[in-house]
């Protein structure tokens, strides 16, 4: 074969490949569960690693007085320190002293019961008032269900219209899954790509919180984290994001203090963690010094549990999630909050699900076996039928399942009291 023919062959292959890529739709072609893409010329010749350039918009800055950081000494009461209930939370209590010079993180995972920062905000307010820190913590780049009151944010392409980045979820409908399981600490990921979403313009993210949640720095949790120090506290800030990268969320915080993330996973039974790539989880828990993980699940499976065996199977699955999370966050204590009381119609009357006490016991047993702490919201509310009373008091919605805002505040206060109960300002027990 003559070299000229080989040369023509090579040129034709390169040319036709280039043409095929050029003709390929930019948004890709969906084949089965996968979207097939074609590279642009730059990517075709030399693939570039995804990068995200983040710039700040100073126009929106509104400086507030510096956030105060109370420096109360931390002691754990003698009684509680010896109490088995609090035994596994000790690493968290002992880390609280570090909030003075550094940060301590609490991540509150839960189902729709904590959606909109409910319950979490009560705990956050108490912890930040006592140990310092300000800011709402981690929020997703794009919120599917805009229900938070502690912050608002608008993601826009050109300042007028809202744009929706490609988002994958570890929970909810299976069509939103991602093959490589890289979801990040919120169980969701937004694929920022200016080229796909917004032509060549950058994307703007305006963050706005209430005054009580002023923040001093913004952490963009992504394939590679970026921390932007604002030098002073503010409640408003606009980020401009240019480029392409997986973004797991944006955290509003300060350099020191305690932060509580509210991660609401609607419809989730709490068994999704093993389906999230551990690398990003571990990196987040380590980098943000996460010392307490609160899991509040169970409500979504209650209607489907009819036998003791099913309950045990669910409890075992939860046990596996705890094992996995412990491996991802070996320094964090884990607190599991069981399902609240829930009502169903039986014989034309509202009454609590009969399986709830069985589930509560099974979960407690599993959680304690996994060396974590269990707190029964069901018992704290008052046991069987309590939801009916809460409904009558305007603390629960008409569905007999979800709390109203007031009810969430009360439940949050109960959770707060449970967590903070062992802490005292009197040096009755060593805190080393």
């Amino acid at each position, binding site marked *: 074969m003559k070299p000229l*023919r080989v*040369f023509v062959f090579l040129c034709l292959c390169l040319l036709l490949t280039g043409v095929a890529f050029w003709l390929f739709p930019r948004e890709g072609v969906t084949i089965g569960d996968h979207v097939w893409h074609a590279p642009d010329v730059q990517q075709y010749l030399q693939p570039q690693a995804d990068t995200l350039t983040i710039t700040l918009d100073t126009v929106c800055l509104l400086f507030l007085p510096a956030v105060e950081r109370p420096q109360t000494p931390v002691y754990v009461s003698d009684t509680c320190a010896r109490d088995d209930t609090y035994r596994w939370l000790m690493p968290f209590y002992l880390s609280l002293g570090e909030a003075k010079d550094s940060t301590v993180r609490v991540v509150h995972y839960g189902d729709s019961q904590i959606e909109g920062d409910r319950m979490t905000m009560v705990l956050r307010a108490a912890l930040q008032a006592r140990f310092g820190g300000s800011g709402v913590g981690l929020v997703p780049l794009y919120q599917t269900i805009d229900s938070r009151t502690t912050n608002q944010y608008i993601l826009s392409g050109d300042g007028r219209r809202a744009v929706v980045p490609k988002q994958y979820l570890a929970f909810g409908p299976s069509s939103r899954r991602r093959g490589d399981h890289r979801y990040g600490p919120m169980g969701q990921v937004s694929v920022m790509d200016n080229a796909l979403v917004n032509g060549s313009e950058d994307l703007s993210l305006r963050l706005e919180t209430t005054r009580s949640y002023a923040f001093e720095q913004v952490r963009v949790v992504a394939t590679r984290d970026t921390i932007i120090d604002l030098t002073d506290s503010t409640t408003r800030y606009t980020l401009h994001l240019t480029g392409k990268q997986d973004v797991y969320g944006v955290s509003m915080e300060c350099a020191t203090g305690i932060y509580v993330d509210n991660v609401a996973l609607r419809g989730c039974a709490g068994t999704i963690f093993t389906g999230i790539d*551990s690398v990003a989880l571990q990196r987040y828990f380590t980098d943000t010094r996460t010392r307490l993980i609160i899991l509040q699940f169970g409500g979504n499976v209650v209607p489907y549990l009819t036998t003791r065996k099913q309950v045990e199977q669910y409890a075992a699955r939860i046990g596996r999630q705890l094992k996995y999370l412990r491996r991802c966050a070996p320094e964090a204590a884990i607190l599991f909050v069981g399902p609240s009381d829930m009502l169903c119609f039986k014989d034309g009357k509202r009454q609590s699900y009969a399986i709830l006490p069985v589930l509560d016991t099974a979960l407690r047993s599993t959680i304690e076996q996994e060396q974590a702490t269990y707190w029964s919201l069901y018992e704290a509310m008052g046991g069987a039928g309590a939801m009916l009373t809460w409904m009558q008091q305007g603390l629960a919605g008409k569905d007999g399942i979800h709390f109203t805002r007031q009810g969430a505040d009360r439940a949050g206060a109960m959770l707060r009291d449970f967590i903070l109960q062992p802490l005292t300002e009197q040096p009755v027990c060593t805190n080393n």
Partner: protein
Amino acid sequence: MYEQLTDILTYDPQHPLLFTQGAFWLFFAVVYGVFTCIVGRASHNEQKTRLHLRNVFLMLASWWFYYKTSGTFLLLLVVLTLVAWLFTRAMDRANQQGHLRLTRILLWSSVLIDLAALGFFKYAYFGVDVINQLIGTQLTITEKILLPVGISFYTFQIISYTADVYHARIRPVRNLLDFGFYVSFFPQLVAGPIVRASEFVPQLYRPFRLGRRQFGIAVFWILNGLIKKIVLSDYLATHFIDRVFDNPLLFSGAENLLALFAYSLQVYADFSGYTDIAIGVAMLMGFYLPRNFHSPYKAANPQEFWRRWHISLSRWLKTYVYIPLGGNRNATPATYIWLLVIAVIGTWLSGSWWVAALMSASAAVVALVAYVRPEHRKLLYANMNSFLTMLLGGLWHGASWNFLIWGGLNGLGMIANKLWREWHRAVQWGVMLCLTAAVFALRYVWAEQAWLNVACVWLLCLLVGASLRLLVYVLHGSDKPVSLAIGNAWAVTQTFVFITFTRLFFRSGSNLDPATANEQAWQTARQMLAQIGSAWDTANLLPVLWEHRVIVLLFVIGMLIHWMPDKFKLWYRIRFASLPVWVIIPCVVLIVMVLYQFMRADMQPFIYFQF
């Protein structure tokens, strides 16, 4: 425009020129265009000049390719080439004039210069560490020493050329530019195969010739290599293996084991993928590189594995290390010197005197047996030399305790298997029973050691195999198993498992900062072994495997293709090569489009670039 041109022409450490990028194929097309102009229709008188011009052009193109891959380290390549050429010329002259001593001095000087360059880049951190520990200095390496890409491959190639000229196996290349082309030919420059001068130099003076079917085969090798690299190697690495090796404690024992087996496939797909592309690209230019892999996981024992894996390096080690040590005839002073050196290095790297004691005791036992049983001396020396060769092969990969263990395990595996095959079935069974019992007893005493759990499981498997073979022998009174195929499949599986476990140490020591490699590599290997050897959550096994179903599926498919009969592979290779060119072109376009779906922006460089 100017900036883009500068980007294309200059070195960017973030974007080396890789076979997996469109930029490389554009480069190749341009090179091929010029190549076509040079080698195209030439009269008989012009042919010599054209060949010379072709070689010079390809050398310059290779140098630019190396510059794009390794930057100013190109100077090192040029200097080493020049030094080797001058020394071999001088050696040849001295040899012809009968100055044997001078010839030998020139040989050693040339080899030492090459080894010094290699040693500096590979072992500088280790050397500084040793000096600091020995004489209490506080020397530090302020500028991070980067390893020039492919330095081992071209220094080995130069050493082989120098040694062949010394032994008068070949005549020295007269023309410096031709020699430069031989050393730096770009398809095989950065990761082999290590081409012997006797195989390649004659091709420098041969006119271009490429048959129609050879063309098809060349295209097949290129596509085959790209598929291996992008679909198997990179996908497995980025989606699973790297994550597990980065943090073994985050994953269960089953996941760690899966990662280890997947790594065995990854490293093969990566390295042999590179070689396939190199062979195909060279073939399109009318040059023929030797085969570097021959389905290594089909090997039924460790010796066979090393005859099938990285064949050019195995052959190099045999010719230039094993035989000079004494080969299978005797032990030379070099054998004992290297034994001592490795014992010292091993003790240093492991930080344990047990290593020195173990090696000294082994040497003493060998010496004693050689003294008492002179008829076994040859066997002992052969085994000792092959063991040392494997240890040196391990150290070549880097000054890490893990690489030394990897080399040692391979050496031990080869020796053990050689002895094993000479024993009677009953003796094999008895030895295996005793060994299994001993390890179980150790486990009973030393319960917390995870590696003992792994050893127990594996020895139990071997014992079952040995028992079945003995049973077949007793029942049939024949030394042959009932079914050779089953026996062979069992042997292939065991060899694969053994090689995979040695890779635990190999992979843990790879991709690391040389300054901290030793400690980190050892830690990773220990953690993985601890995870694999601790109690498995069997109830969780299926959900875990299901979560990694794509990885499992790719691994299974990869291994099945690997284990296909050679005849079948040859058949479809020829079928592809015989397709009309107008069919091959759309095939190439389609395959490239599919491959792109597997590509990630953070493409992995070829594993063996780092060695």
